[in-house]
C-alpha cells in the first residue's frame, strides 16, 4: 500500500509543479487577449482597464496563481475570454473527443503490438523477425504529419471514408446504430494514423522484453515438459516479460496524446488539438493552461493506472512494499 501512496503523492506534486510552470510562462507572454481590443476605436481604453481588472489581469502574478489554484480545487479552471464562459466545460467536451481517439488507439495498438512482438521474438534472427524489423523501421521513418496527410489524400481519392470531422451533418437524424456506424467511420482514419505512429515503439519493446525472457531456464524446462508453444508464449513468457511493458503503457499514453494533438488538427477532429491551437492564436491563456494541465492529468492518471497494474501483476513490488 505504501507503494501506491508514494506514487499518488508523486503524481500530485507533479501536477502542482506543471500548473506552476504553465502559469509562470504567462509572465513571459507579451500581449494579452485584450490587447487586440485597443486597436478597436469603438472600445474605450477605460473599458479595457475595467475588463482587465475584472479578470484580474492587473494583479501581481503570485496572487493570480493562488486565486487560480484555489478555484481549481473547486473545479474552476478560469475563464475563456474568447468564448466568454468558464474554461472547464469547454475543455471537457474536447477532452472527451480526444480521449475517445487516444483510448481506442491505445487498445488497438497494444492488441496488434503484443502478438507481433511475441511472434518476432519467437523467430529471433529469422525471416519473420527481419520482416518486422524492416516494417517498424519504415514506420519510424515516416513522420506522423506525413502519415496523417497521406491517409487523408488516400481517403479523398477513394471517396469511401469521411475526410475529417467527427460526425456527419445528418448525425442527429440517424438511428442508434446509424450513429455508431457514422462515428466509427469518422474515427477510422485518425485512429489508424495514431496506431501506426506508436506501433513501431511498442512492437520493438515487446520483442526485446519477450526475447530476453525466452532464453530463461524456466521456459526451457516448461518446453521440456511438453507444454504447447502457444501456452508457453502467452501464459508463461508474457507475464514474466510484463514489467517493462506495463511501464511502457504509461509512456505510450504521452506519445499518443502528443500524436493525437497533431492528427486532430490535420483531420479536423474536434478534440483538444484544434481547440488549443485556436486558443494560442487568440492568446486565451486560461484555455491554454487548462489544456496543458488536463493533458498532464491524463498522462499522470495513465501512469498511475500503469503503476496499479504493475502492483497487481508483479509480486516483487508487493513484496518489497510490505517488507
Amino acid at each position, binding site marked *: 500500500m505504501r507503494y501506491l501512496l508514494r506514487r499518488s503523492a508523486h503524481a500530485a506534486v507533479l501536477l502542482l509543479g*506543471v500548473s506552476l510552470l504553465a502559469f509562470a510562462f504567462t509572465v513571459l507572454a507579451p500581449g494579452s487577449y485584450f490587447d487586440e481590443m485597443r486597436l478597436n476605436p469603438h472600445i474605450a481604453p477605460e473599458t479595457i482597464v475595467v475588463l482587465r481588472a475584472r479578470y484580474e489581469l492587473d494583479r501581481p502574478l503570485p496572487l493570480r496563481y493562488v486565486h487560480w489554484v484555489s478555484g481549481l480545487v473547486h473545479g474552476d479552471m478560469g475563464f475563456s475570454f474568447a468564448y466568454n464562459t468558464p474554461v472547464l466545460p469547454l475543455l471537457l467536451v474536447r477532452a472527451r473527443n480526444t480521449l475517445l481517439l487516444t483510448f481506442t488507439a491505445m487498445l488497438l495498438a497494444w492488441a496488434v503490438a503484443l502478438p507481433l512482438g511475441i511472434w518476432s521474438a519467437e523467430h529471433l534472427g529469422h525471416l519473420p523477425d527481419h520482416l518486422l524489423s524492416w516494417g517498424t523501421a519504415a514506420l519510424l*521513418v515516416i*513522420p506522423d*504529419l506525413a502519415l496523417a*496527410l497521406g491517409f487523408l*489524400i488516400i481517403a479523398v481519392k477513394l471517396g469511401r471514408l469521411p475526410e475529417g470531422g467527427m460526425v456527419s451533418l445528418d448525425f442527429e437524424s440517424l438511428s442508434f446504430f446509424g450513429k455508431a456506424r457514422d462515428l466509427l467511420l469518422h474515427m477510422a482514419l485518425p485512429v489508424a494514423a495514431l496506431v501506426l505512429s506508436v506501433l513501431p515503439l511498442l512492437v520493438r519493446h515487446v520483442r526485446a522484453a519477450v526475447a530476453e525472457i525466452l532464453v530463461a531456464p524456466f521456459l526451457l524446462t516448461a518446453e521440456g515438459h511438453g507444454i504447447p508453444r502457444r501456452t508457453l508464449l502467452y501464459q508463461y513468457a508474457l507475464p514474466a516479460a510484463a514489467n517493462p511493458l506495463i511501464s511502457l503503457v504509461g509512456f505510450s499514453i504521452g506519445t499518443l*496524446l502528443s500524436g493525437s494533438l497533431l492528427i486532430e488538427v490535420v483531420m479536423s477532429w474536434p478534440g483538444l488539438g484544434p481547440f488549443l491551437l485556436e*486558443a494560442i492564436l487568440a492568446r486565451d491563456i486560461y484555455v491554454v493552461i487548462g489544456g496543458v494541465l488536463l493533458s498532464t492529468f491524463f498522462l499522470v492518471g495513465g501512469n498511475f493506472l500503469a503503476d496499479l497494474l504493475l502492483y497487481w501483476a508483479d509480486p516483487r513490488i508487493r513484496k518489497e512494499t510490505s517488507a
Partner: protein
Amino acid sequence: MTGRRAISWWLLLLVGLHALVLFAGFFAPYDPTEQDRRSPYLPPMRLHFVDNQGHFHARPFAFALKLREASFDQYEEDRTRALPLKFMVRGANYRWLGLLPSRLHLFGAESEKIYLLGSDAYGRDQLSRFVYGGRVSLFAGLLGAGVTVLLGLCVGAAAGYYGGWRDDLLMRLAELFLALPWLYLLFALRAFLPLAVSPLEAFLLIIAVLGAVGWARPARLVRGVVLSAKERDFVRAARGFGATDGYLLRRHILPATSSVLLTQAAILVPQFILAEMTLSFLGLGVPEPVPSWGNLLSSLQQYSVLVSYWWMYLPALIMLPFFLGYLGLASELQERTEAYKIGN
C-alpha cells in the same frame, strides 16, 4: 556491415543530403520566393527521353504545360514545346553559403521554367522551395539538438557531480518536463511567446523552445554517466592529488559522456525537425514567404488542395531519406552504447 563501417555509411548519406540543402542556391533551379501568377498549381513535369517522332535523346527533356481545353486548373503537356534539361545554367542570383554571389545552377531550362515537383498557389517552384525549406527545418533541428544537448550536459553534470539538494532539485525539474506530453509542452511554450515575428526571429525562437522542451532526457542520462564516472579510481586519485572541480570535470568526467551525448543528438535531430515542421505547419513557426518543410505542407490543410493538387504532398515523401539517415545513425550509435537505453 557492422559497427564503425555502418556508422560511416550513414554519416556519408547524411553529409550528402545536408550538402544538398546547404548549397540550396546551386541545387535549386529557381528563387524560392519568385512567383509566377499565371501558372498556379502546375503538376510536376515528367522527364522524357523519347520525342514525338520516337527518337531517343540522351538529354532528358520535359514538355511545357498548357491548360486543357474548357478548364481553368487542369494542365496537359504541350507536345510542341519541348524544354530540354540543361546543366550548369545561369539563372537567379544567390550567394554560396550566404557569401559568394553566383548565378550558377545545377540544372534548368532555357526558354521556360521547368517544374519537376510542380508549383504552388503562387506559381513558385516546389522543388526550389523544398531545397531552401530544408535549410530552415534541418538547421532548426540541428541547432535545437545542439542547444538541448549542451543544456542537458550542463544540468546533468551539475546534478551528478555536486549531488545533494542540487541533484534533487534539478532532477525533480527534469521529471516535470518529462511528464508533459512534448507537443503540448511545445505548444504551451510557443503560446507565451510573440506570435507575429520575422522569419529569423521565428527561427531563433523555435530553437530556444526546442532546447527548453528537450533538455530533461539528456540531462538524466548525463547525470547517470557522471555519477558512475566520478567514483572511478583514476578520478579519485586525481582528486587526491588536489585536482580542482573544473579540471576533473573537463579532463576526466565529461569525456565519458560523449557517446551518450552523440546518441542523444542523433535521436533528437529528426524529432526536432519534425517539431519545427509541426509548428510551421500549424502557422506557429517560420512564416511565409520563407519556405520551411512545415509551411510547404500547410497548403494541404485546405480541402481543395487535398482533392485536386496531390503533388503538394510530394515534399513529405522526398524528406523521408533525411529521417532514414538519422534513424540509421541513431540506431547504430545506440547499439554501440547499449548500456544506455531509451525510455525513462
